[in-house]
Protein backbone atom coordinates (compact mmCIF):
# COMPACT_ATOMS: atom_id res chain seq x y z
CA UNK A 1 0.00 0.00 0.00
CA UNK A 2 1.13 3.57 0.41
CA UNK A 3 4.42 4.57 1.91
CA UNK A 4 4.73 7.00 4.81
CA UNK A 5 4.92 10.68 3.99
CA UNK A 6 8.32 12.27 4.20
CA UNK A 7 9.45 15.70 5.33
CA UNK A 8 9.63 16.76 1.69
CA UNK A 9 5.97 15.90 1.27
CA UNK A 10 5.10 17.81 4.39
CA UNK A 11 6.92 20.94 3.25
CA UNK A 12 5.44 20.78 -0.25
CA UNK A 13 2.07 20.36 1.40
CA UNK A 14 2.61 23.41 3.58
CA UNK A 15 3.76 25.40 0.57
CA UNK A 16 0.71 24.61 -1.47
CA UNK A 17 -1.49 25.48 1.50
CA UNK A 18 0.22 28.81 1.91
CA UNK A 19 -0.09 29.65 -1.75
CA UNK A 20 -3.75 29.00 -2.39
CA UNK A 21 -5.82 27.63 0.42
CA UNK A 22 -4.89 30.16 3.08
CA UNK A 23 -5.70 33.04 0.74
CA UNK A 24 -9.12 31.57 0.04
CA UNK A 25 -9.81 31.02 3.74
CA UNK A 26 -8.84 34.65 4.41
CA UNK A 27 -11.39 35.74 1.82
CA UNK A 28 -14.05 33.59 3.50
CA UNK A 29 -13.19 35.06 6.90
CA UNK A 30 -13.56 38.55 5.45
CA UNK A 31 -17.04 37.64 4.24
CA UNK A 32 -17.82 36.28 7.71
CA UNK A 33 -16.63 39.50 9.34
CA UNK A 34 -18.89 41.55 7.07
CA UNK A 35 -21.85 39.33 7.99
CA UNK A 36 -21.08 39.80 11.69
CA UNK A 37 -20.88 43.53 11.32
CA UNK A 38 -24.10 43.89 9.33
CA UNK A 39 -26.40 41.68 11.38
CA UNK A 40 -28.46 42.48 14.45
CA UNK A 41 -27.99 40.01 17.33
CA UNK A 42 -30.27 36.96 17.24
CA UNK A 43 -30.47 33.71 19.18
CA UNK A 44 -29.63 31.44 16.24
CA UNK A 45 -27.08 33.58 14.44
CA UNK A 46 -23.61 32.12 14.78
CA UNK A 47 -20.26 31.75 13.11
CA UNK A 48 -18.20 28.58 13.50
CA UNK A 49 -14.53 28.42 12.57
CA UNK A 50 -12.83 25.06 12.74
CA UNK A 51 -9.60 23.40 11.73
CA UNK A 52 -9.70 19.64 11.27
CA UNK A 53 -6.72 17.37 10.79
CA UNK A 54 -6.57 13.70 9.77
CA UNK A 55 -3.31 11.81 9.65
CA UNK A 56 -2.52 8.20 8.83
CA UNK A 57 0.80 6.76 7.60
CA UNK A 58 0.08 7.43 3.92
CA UNK A 59 -2.38 10.33 4.02
CA UNK A 60 -2.74 13.71 5.66
CA UNK A 61 -5.80 15.92 5.42
CA UNK A 62 -6.06 19.49 6.70
CA UNK A 63 -9.55 20.92 6.50
CA UNK A 64 -10.25 24.53 7.54
CA UNK A 65 -13.96 25.31 7.50
CA UNK A 66 -16.20 28.27 8.22
CA UNK A 67 -19.94 28.02 8.80
CA UNK A 68 -22.27 31.02 9.14
CA UNK A 69 -25.94 30.90 10.13
CA UNK A 70 -28.22 33.89 10.09
CA UNK A 71 -31.90 34.48 10.81
CA UNK A 72 -33.82 36.42 8.17
CA UNK A 73 -37.21 38.16 8.29
CA UNK A 74 -40.51 36.27 7.75
CA UNK A 75 -39.36 33.03 9.35
CA UNK A 76 -36.48 32.41 6.96
CA UNK A 77 -32.90 31.56 7.88
CA UNK A 78 -29.79 30.87 5.88
CA UNK A 79 -26.76 28.71 6.58
CA UNK A 80 -23.64 28.65 4.49
CA UNK A 81 -20.32 26.88 4.73
CA UNK A 82 -17.03 26.92 2.90
CA UNK A 83 -14.29 24.36 3.43
CA UNK A 84 -11.01 23.28 1.94
CA UNK A 85 -9.74 19.72 1.97
CA UNK A 86 -5.96 19.76 1.51
CA UNK A 87 -5.04 16.11 1.02
CA UNK A 88 -1.45 14.93 0.85
CA UNK A 89 -1.23 11.26 -0.04
CA UNK A 90 1.40 8.70 -0.86
CA UNK A 91 -1.12 5.95 -1.28
CA UNK A 92 -1.42 4.09 -4.55
CA UNK A 93 -4.83 2.96 -3.41
CA UNK A 94 -6.27 6.41 -3.19
CA UNK A 95 -4.38 8.41 -5.77
CA UNK A 96 -2.42 8.28 -8.97
CA UNK A 97 -0.64 5.01 -9.69
CA UNK A 98 3.08 4.87 -9.22
CA UNK A 99 2.81 5.60 -5.50
CA UNK A 100 3.95 9.19 -5.94
CA UNK A 101 3.38 11.80 -3.27
CA UNK A 102 0.88 14.43 -4.31
CA UNK A 103 -1.18 17.20 -2.76
CA UNK A 104 -4.73 17.81 -3.84
CA UNK A 105 -6.98 20.64 -2.70
CA UNK A 106 -10.73 20.19 -2.73
CA UNK A 107 -12.96 23.26 -2.37
CA UNK A 108 -16.49 22.87 -1.09
CA UNK A 109 -19.20 25.45 -0.59
CA UNK A 110 -22.81 25.01 0.41
CA UNK A 111 -25.85 27.08 1.19
CA UNK A 112 -29.09 26.06 2.89
CA UNK A 113 -32.21 28.18 3.21
CA UNK A 114 -34.84 27.30 5.81
CA UNK A 115 -38.38 28.49 6.45
CA UNK A 116 -40.19 27.94 9.76
CA UNK A 117 -43.91 27.64 10.28
CA UNK A 118 -45.70 26.93 13.56
CA UNK A 119 -45.16 23.15 13.47
CA UNK A 120 -43.16 22.63 10.33
CA UNK A 121 -39.73 23.54 9.03
CA UNK A 122 -38.66 23.22 5.41
CA UNK A 123 -35.09 23.50 4.10
CA UNK A 124 -33.54 23.58 0.66
CA UNK A 125 -29.80 23.23 0.20
CA UNK A 126 -27.15 23.09 -2.47
CA UNK A 127 -23.48 22.07 -2.20
CA UNK A 128 -20.69 22.18 -4.73
CA UNK A 129 -17.33 20.49 -4.47
CA UNK A 130 -14.45 20.82 -6.89
CA UNK A 131 -10.96 19.41 -7.22
CA UNK A 132 -8.75 18.97 -10.24
CA UNK A 133 -10.32 15.66 -11.28
CA UNK A 134 -13.67 15.50 -9.47
CA UNK A 135 -16.69 17.85 -9.48
CA UNK A 136 -19.84 17.28 -7.50
CA UNK A 137 -23.24 18.98 -7.20
CA UNK A 138 -25.78 18.05 -4.52
CA UNK A 139 -29.31 19.41 -4.05
CA UNK A 140 -31.27 18.39 -0.96
CA UNK A 141 -34.68 19.29 0.46
CA UNK A 142 -35.69 18.48 4.00
CA UNK A 143 -38.56 18.95 6.39
CA UNK A 144 -39.28 18.56 10.10
CA UNK A 145 -42.80 18.19 11.48
CA UNK A 146 -43.37 18.57 15.23
CA UNK A 147 -46.02 16.23 16.64
CA UNK A 148 -47.85 15.25 19.85
CA UNK A 149 -47.56 18.59 21.60
CA UNK A 150 -43.93 19.02 20.58
CA UNK A 151 -42.87 15.70 22.08
CA UNK A 152 -42.06 14.07 18.73
CA UNK A 153 -40.56 14.99 15.38
CA UNK A 154 -40.93 13.43 11.97
CA UNK A 155 -38.17 14.51 9.64
CA UNK A 156 -37.45 13.68 6.05
CA UNK A 157 -34.94 14.61 3.40
CA UNK A 158 -34.73 13.88 -0.28
CA UNK A 159 -32.16 14.93 -2.81
CA UNK A 160 -29.98 14.18 -5.75
CA UNK A 161 -26.46 14.65 -6.98
CA UNK A 162 -24.43 14.73 -10.15
CA UNK A 163 -20.67 14.08 -10.16
CA UNK A 164 -18.16 14.17 -12.97
CA UNK A 165 -14.78 12.47 -12.81
CA UNK A 166 -11.66 12.66 -14.94
CA UNK A 167 -8.24 11.10 -14.83
CA UNK A 168 -5.11 13.19 -14.56
CA UNK A 169 -2.11 11.94 -16.46
CA UNK A 170 1.41 12.97 -15.56
CA UNK A 171 2.71 15.62 -17.96
CA UNK A 172 -0.73 16.31 -19.41
CA UNK A 173 -3.09 19.19 -18.71
CA UNK A 174 -3.66 19.70 -14.97
CA UNK A 175 -7.39 20.14 -15.65
CA UNK A 176 -8.43 17.26 -17.91
CA UNK A 177 -11.96 17.19 -19.33
CA UNK A 178 -14.55 15.06 -17.49
CA UNK A 179 -14.68 11.46 -18.65
CA UNK A 180 -17.17 9.74 -16.35
CA UNK A 181 -20.30 10.74 -14.50
CA UNK A 182 -22.25 9.54 -11.51
CA UNK A 183 -25.86 10.34 -10.63
CA UNK A 184 -27.38 9.68 -7.25
CA UNK A 185 -30.70 10.06 -5.54
CA UNK A 186 -31.18 9.72 -1.80
CA UNK A 187 -33.91 9.96 0.81
CA UNK A 188 -34.29 9.55 4.54
CA UNK A 189 -37.08 9.40 7.09
CA UNK A 190 -36.53 9.78 10.85
CA UNK A 191 -38.92 9.74 13.77
CA UNK A 192 -37.83 11.13 17.14
CA UNK A 193 -39.76 10.77 20.38
CA UNK A 194 -39.29 12.46 23.74
CA UNK A 195 -40.12 9.76 26.29
CA UNK A 196 -39.49 11.87 29.38
CA UNK A 197 -37.81 15.23 30.21
CA UNK A 198 -34.49 13.35 30.22
CA UNK A 199 -34.99 10.58 27.61
CA UNK A 200 -35.13 10.81 23.81
CA UNK A 201 -35.19 8.06 21.17
CA UNK A 202 -34.99 8.26 17.42
CA UNK A 203 -35.32 5.73 14.61
CA UNK A 204 -35.04 6.05 10.88
CA UNK A 205 -34.29 4.71 7.45
CA UNK A 206 -32.00 6.13 4.76
CA UNK A 207 -31.47 5.04 1.20
CA UNK A 208 -29.35 6.10 -1.75
CA UNK A 209 -29.41 4.94 -5.34
CA UNK A 210 -26.19 5.43 -7.30
CA UNK A 211 -25.96 5.10 -11.05
CA UNK A 212 -22.81 5.73 -13.06
CA UNK A 213 -19.08 5.63 -12.52
CA UNK A 214 -18.43 4.22 -9.04
CA UNK A 215 -14.72 3.44 -9.24
CA UNK A 216 -11.45 5.28 -9.00
CA UNK A 217 -9.66 5.84 -12.32
CA UNK A 218 -6.33 5.42 -10.51
CA UNK A 219 -6.74 2.25 -8.47
CA UNK A 220 -4.85 -0.62 -10.14
CA UNK A 221 -6.11 -4.22 -10.02
CA UNK A 222 -3.29 -6.58 -11.01
CA UNK A 223 -2.96 -7.22 -14.73
CA UNK A 224 -6.54 -6.08 -15.38
CA UNK A 225 -5.61 -2.39 -15.30
CA UNK A 226 -7.73 -0.07 -13.18
CA UNK A 227 -10.69 -1.32 -11.20
CA UNK A 228 -14.12 -1.81 -12.75
CA UNK A 229 -17.06 -1.42 -10.36
CA UNK A 230 -20.71 -2.31 -11.09
CA UNK A 231 -22.36 0.86 -12.34
CA UNK A 232 -25.35 0.68 -10.02
CA UNK A 233 -25.62 0.44 -6.26
CA UNK A 234 -28.60 0.72 -3.97
CA UNK A 235 -27.71 1.52 -0.37
CA UNK A 236 -30.00 1.08 2.64
CA UNK A 237 -29.46 1.93 6.30
CA UNK A 238 -31.61 1.57 9.40
CA UNK A 239 -30.66 3.59 12.46
CA UNK A 240 -31.65 3.75 16.11
CA UNK A 241 -30.45 6.38 18.59
CA UNK A 242 -31.18 7.02 22.23
CA UNK A 243 -30.13 9.73 24.69
CA UNK A 244 -30.45 9.84 28.46
CA UNK A 245 -29.49 12.68 30.80
CA UNK A 246 -28.79 12.40 34.53
CA UNK A 247 -29.37 15.90 36.00
CA UNK A 248 -27.92 15.09 39.42
CA UNK A 249 -24.43 14.40 38.06
CA UNK A 250 -24.65 16.46 34.86
CA UNK A 251 -24.00 13.33 32.79
CA UNK A 252 -25.50 12.50 29.41
CA UNK A 253 -25.37 9.24 27.44
CA UNK A 254 -26.03 8.59 23.79
CA UNK A 255 -26.21 5.21 22.07
CA UNK A 256 -26.30 4.97 18.27
CA UNK A 257 -26.77 1.81 16.22
CA UNK A 258 -26.80 1.56 12.43
CA UNK A 259 -27.37 -1.44 10.19
CA UNK A 260 -26.42 -1.06 6.55
CA UNK A 261 -26.83 -3.26 3.47
CA UNK A 262 -26.69 -2.74 -0.26
CA UNK A 263 -27.83 -4.50 -3.42
CA UNK A 264 -27.36 -4.29 -7.16
CA UNK A 265 -30.56 -2.75 -8.57
CA UNK A 266 -29.95 -3.58 -12.24
CA UNK A 267 -31.24 -6.57 -14.22
CA UNK A 268 -30.41 -9.92 -12.61
CA UNK A 269 -29.04 -11.10 -15.96
CA UNK A 270 -26.12 -8.64 -15.62
CA UNK A 271 -24.37 -11.01 -13.19
CA UNK A 272 -25.97 -14.38 -13.90
CA UNK A 273 -28.57 -13.87 -11.16
CA UNK A 274 -25.98 -13.05 -8.50
CA UNK A 275 -25.57 -9.78 -6.64
CA UNK A 276 -22.06 -8.27 -6.87
CA UNK A 277 -22.54 -5.98 -3.83
CA UNK A 278 -24.09 -7.58 -0.71
CA UNK A 279 -22.01 -5.37 1.62
CA UNK A 280 -23.52 -5.23 5.08
CA UNK A 281 -22.27 -3.54 8.23
CA UNK A 282 -23.04 -2.81 11.86
CA UNK A 283 -22.01 0.42 13.60
CA UNK A 284 -22.32 1.02 17.32
CA UNK A 285 -21.38 4.35 18.87
CA UNK A 286 -21.50 5.42 22.50
CA UNK A 287 -21.08 9.03 23.65
CA UNK A 288 -20.75 10.16 27.26
CA UNK A 289 -21.09 13.84 28.12
CA UNK A 290 -19.90 15.08 31.50
CA UNK A 291 -20.25 18.62 32.82
CA UNK A 292 -16.96 19.31 34.63
CA UNK A 293 -17.55 22.94 35.66
CA UNK A 294 -20.19 25.51 34.72
CA UNK A 295 -18.06 26.44 31.67
CA UNK A 296 -16.38 23.15 30.81
CA UNK A 297 -17.86 19.97 29.36
CA UNK A 298 -16.15 16.72 28.33
CA UNK A 299 -17.41 14.34 25.68
CA UNK A 300 -16.01 10.84 25.26
CA UNK A 301 -16.87 8.87 22.12
CA UNK A 302 -16.37 5.18 21.36
CA UNK A 303 -17.33 3.74 17.97
CA UNK A 304 -17.11 0.21 16.58
CA UNK A 305 -17.70 -0.64 12.93
CA UNK A 306 -17.74 -4.05 11.27
CA UNK A 307 -18.35 -4.76 7.60
CA UNK A 308 -18.44 -7.76 5.26
CA UNK A 309 -16.81 -7.69 1.81
CA UNK A 310 -18.52 -6.93 -1.49
CA UNK A 311 -19.17 -10.19 -3.35
CA UNK A 312 -17.03 -9.15 -6.32
CA UNK A 313 -14.07 -7.93 -4.20
CA UNK A 314 -10.81 -9.76 -4.74
CA UNK A 315 -8.01 -10.11 -2.21
CA UNK A 316 -5.10 -9.88 -4.64
CA UNK A 317 -2.58 -9.39 -1.84
CA UNK A 318 -3.36 -12.83 -0.40
CA UNK A 319 -4.44 -14.67 -3.53
CA UNK A 320 -2.97 -13.52 -6.85
CA UNK A 321 -5.24 -15.85 -8.84
CA UNK A 322 -8.40 -14.70 -7.14
CA UNK A 323 -9.67 -12.88 -10.23
CA UNK A 324 -9.89 -16.19 -12.12
CA UNK A 325 -11.46 -18.09 -9.24
CA UNK A 326 -14.54 -20.16 -10.36
CA UNK A 327 -16.51 -18.79 -7.41
CA UNK A 328 -16.56 -15.37 -9.00
CA UNK A 329 -17.26 -16.43 -12.58
CA UNK A 330 -20.46 -14.33 -12.55
CA UNK A 331 -18.32 -11.25 -11.85
CA UNK A 332 -15.81 -11.67 -14.67
CA UNK A 333 -16.38 -8.10 -15.89
CA UNK A 334 -16.04 -6.34 -12.54
CA UNK A 335 -13.01 -6.37 -10.26
CA UNK A 336 -11.54 -4.34 -7.45
CA UNK A 337 -9.08 -4.66 -4.61
CA UNK A 338 -10.33 -1.49 -2.90
CA UNK A 339 -9.65 -1.96 0.83
CA UNK A 340 -12.94 -0.36 1.79
CA UNK A 341 -14.86 -3.08 -0.07
CA UNK A 342 -12.97 -5.81 1.80
CA UNK A 343 -13.94 -7.13 5.25
CA UNK A 344 -13.34 -4.01 7.38
CA UNK A 345 -13.39 -3.46 11.07
CA UNK A 346 -12.59 -0.13 12.69
CA UNK A 347 -12.60 1.32 16.18
CA UNK A 348 -12.60 4.99 17.11
CA UNK A 349 -11.98 6.57 20.51
CA UNK A 350 -12.16 10.32 21.01
CA UNK A 351 -12.13 12.90 23.77
CA UNK A 352 -13.51 16.39 23.26
CA UNK A 353 -13.62 19.49 25.47
CA UNK A 354 -16.12 22.35 25.15
CA UNK A 355 -15.22 25.55 26.96
CA UNK A 356 -17.58 28.54 27.23
CA UNK A 357 -15.17 31.48 27.35
CA UNK A 358 -17.32 33.66 29.61
CA UNK A 359 -14.38 33.86 32.06
CA UNK A 360 -12.68 36.18 29.55
CA UNK A 361 -15.43 38.78 29.82
CA UNK A 362 -13.95 42.19 30.63
CA UNK A 363 -10.42 41.28 29.53
CA UNK A 364 -8.66 43.33 26.90
CA UNK A 365 -8.58 41.59 23.50
CA UNK A 366 -9.63 38.18 24.90
CA UNK A 367 -12.94 39.74 25.95
CA UNK A 368 -13.91 39.75 22.27
CA UNK A 369 -14.16 35.95 22.41
CA UNK A 370 -16.01 35.69 25.73
CA UNK A 371 -19.46 35.10 24.21
CA UNK A 372 -18.34 32.03 22.28
CA UNK A 373 -17.40 28.40 22.86
CA UNK A 374 -14.03 26.84 22.13
CA UNK A 375 -13.78 23.16 21.19
CA UNK A 376 -10.79 20.84 21.10
CA UNK A 377 -10.84 17.14 20.33
CA UNK A 378 -8.45 14.30 19.66
CA UNK A 379 -9.39 10.86 18.41
CA UNK A 380 -7.60 7.71 17.28
CA UNK A 381 -9.02 5.55 14.51
CA UNK A 382 -7.94 1.90 14.36
CA UNK A 383 -8.37 0.23 10.97
CA UNK A 384 -8.06 -3.47 10.14
CA UNK A 385 -7.10 -2.62 6.55
CA UNK A 386 -3.68 -1.65 5.24
CA UNK A 387 -4.44 2.02 5.89
CA UNK A 388 -3.56 1.29 9.54
CA UNK A 389 -4.31 3.79 12.32
CA UNK A 390 -5.20 7.46 12.03
CA UNK A 391 -5.14 10.52 14.28
CA UNK A 392 -8.02 13.00 14.13
CA UNK A 393 -7.59 16.42 15.67
CA UNK A 394 -10.14 19.23 15.66
CA UNK A 395 -10.06 22.74 17.11
CA UNK A 396 -12.89 25.20 16.72
CA UNK A 397 -14.66 28.25 17.97
CA UNK A 398 -18.34 29.17 17.70
CA UNK A 399 -19.64 32.62 18.49
CA UNK A 400 -23.26 33.79 18.49
CA UNK A 401 -23.90 37.25 17.07
Amino acid at each position, binding site marked *: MGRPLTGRAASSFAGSMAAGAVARIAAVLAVGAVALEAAPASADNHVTLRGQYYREPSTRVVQPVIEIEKDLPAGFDVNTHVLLDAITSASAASGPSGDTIFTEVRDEAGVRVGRNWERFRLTLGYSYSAESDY*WSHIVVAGGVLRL*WGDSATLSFSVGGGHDTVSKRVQGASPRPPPEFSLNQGFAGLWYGQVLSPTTVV*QGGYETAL*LDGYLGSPYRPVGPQGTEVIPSKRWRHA*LGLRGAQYLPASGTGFQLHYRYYF*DVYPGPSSDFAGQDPWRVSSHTVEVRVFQRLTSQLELRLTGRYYSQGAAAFWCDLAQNASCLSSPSRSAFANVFTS*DPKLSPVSTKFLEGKLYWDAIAWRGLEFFGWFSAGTFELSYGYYWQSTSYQGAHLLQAGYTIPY
Partner: protein
Amino acid sequence: MDFGRRLLRLLRRSFVAVAVAATAVTAAGCAHRPPIEPWQREHLAKRAMRFDSDPVEMHFRQHSFGAREGSDLGYGQPGGGCGCN
Protein backbone atom coordinates in the same frame (compact mmCIF):
# COMPACT_ATOMS: atom_id res chain seq x y z
CA MET B 1 -33.09 -16.79 -7.74
CA ASP B 2 -35.10 -14.24 -9.71
CA PHE B 3 -33.73 -10.77 -9.02
CA GLY B 4 -37.11 -9.02 -9.06
CA ARG B 5 -38.54 -11.38 -6.46
CA ARG B 6 -35.45 -10.94 -4.29
CA LEU B 7 -35.72 -7.15 -4.50
CA LEU B 8 -39.43 -7.29 -3.66
CA ARG B 9 -38.72 -9.42 -0.60
CA LEU B 10 -36.01 -7.00 0.47
CA LEU B 11 -38.33 -4.03 0.15
CA ARG B 12 -41.08 -5.84 2.03
CA ARG B 13 -38.68 -6.65 4.89
CA SER B 14 -37.44 -3.04 5.04
CA PHE B 15 -40.99 -1.72 5.07
CA VAL B 16 -42.03 -4.12 7.86
CA ALA B 17 -38.98 -3.13 9.95
CA VAL B 18 -39.67 0.60 9.53
CA ALA B 19 -43.41 0.10 10.20
CA VAL B 20 -42.72 -1.89 13.40
CA ALA B 21 -40.24 0.73 14.64
CA ALA B 22 -42.60 3.62 13.78
CA THR B 23 -45.53 1.90 15.51
CA ALA B 24 -43.46 1.24 18.63
CA VAL B 25 -42.24 4.82 19.01
CA THR B 26 -45.64 6.29 18.13
CA ALA B 27 -47.25 4.10 20.76
CA ALA B 28 -44.64 5.34 23.23
CA GLY B 29 -45.51 8.92 22.29
CA CYS B 30 -49.25 8.38 22.64
CA ALA B 31 -48.73 6.72 26.00
CA HIS B 32 -47.03 9.85 27.30
CA ARG B 33 -49.80 12.20 28.43
CA PRO B 34 -49.65 15.07 28.98
CA PRO B 35 -46.82 15.96 26.57
CA ILE B 36 -43.61 17.45 27.89
CA GLU B 37 -44.37 20.95 29.09
CA PRO B 38 -42.11 23.89 28.13
CA TRP B 39 -40.72 24.17 31.66
CA GLN B 40 -39.70 20.50 31.55
CA ARG B 41 -37.53 20.97 28.47
CA GLU B 42 -34.45 22.37 30.14
CA HIS B 43 -32.41 19.18 29.76
CA LEU B 44 -33.69 18.39 26.25
CA ALA B 45 -31.88 21.48 24.96
CA LYS B 46 -28.53 20.26 26.25
CA ARG B 47 -25.80 19.13 23.91
CA ALA B 48 -25.98 15.60 25.30
CA MET B 49 -29.61 15.26 24.25
CA ARG B 50 -29.25 16.42 20.67
CA PHE B 51 -28.19 13.99 17.95
CA ASP B 52 -27.35 16.67 15.38
CA SER B 53 -25.75 19.31 17.60
CA ASP B 54 -22.61 19.64 15.47
CA PRO B 55 -23.19 19.34 11.70
CA VAL B 56 -19.68 20.59 10.85
CA GLU B 57 -18.06 17.83 12.89
CA MET B 58 -20.46 15.22 11.50
CA HIS B 59 -19.62 16.37 7.97
CA PHE B 60 -15.87 15.89 8.59
CA ARG B 61 -16.25 12.50 10.25
CA GLN B 62 -18.61 11.23 7.57
CA HIS B 63 -16.18 12.28 4.87
CA SER B 64 -13.14 10.77 6.66
CA PHE B 65 -14.76 7.47 7.60
CA GLY B 66 -16.62 7.28 4.29
CA ALA B 67 -13.28 7.14 2.48
CA ARG B 68 -12.19 4.14 4.56
CA GLU B 69 -15.43 2.21 5.12
CA GLY B 70 -17.72 0.77 2.45
CA SER B 71 -21.11 1.57 3.92
CA ASP B 72 -21.21 5.33 4.01
CA LEU B 73 -24.26 6.68 2.26
CA GLY B 74 -22.51 9.82 1.08
CA TYR B 75 -25.78 11.17 2.35
CA GLY B 76 -26.38 14.73 1.17
CA GLN B 77 -22.69 15.45 0.81
CA PRO B 78 -20.68 16.23 -2.28
CA GLY B 79 -18.38 13.43 -3.36
CA GLY B 80 -14.71 13.57 -4.18
CA GLY B 81 -11.66 13.43 -1.99
CA CYS B 82 -11.06 9.71 -2.14
CA GLY B 83 -12.90 7.00 -4.05
CA CYS B 84 -16.28 7.41 -5.63
CA ASN B 85 -18.45 4.53 -4.52
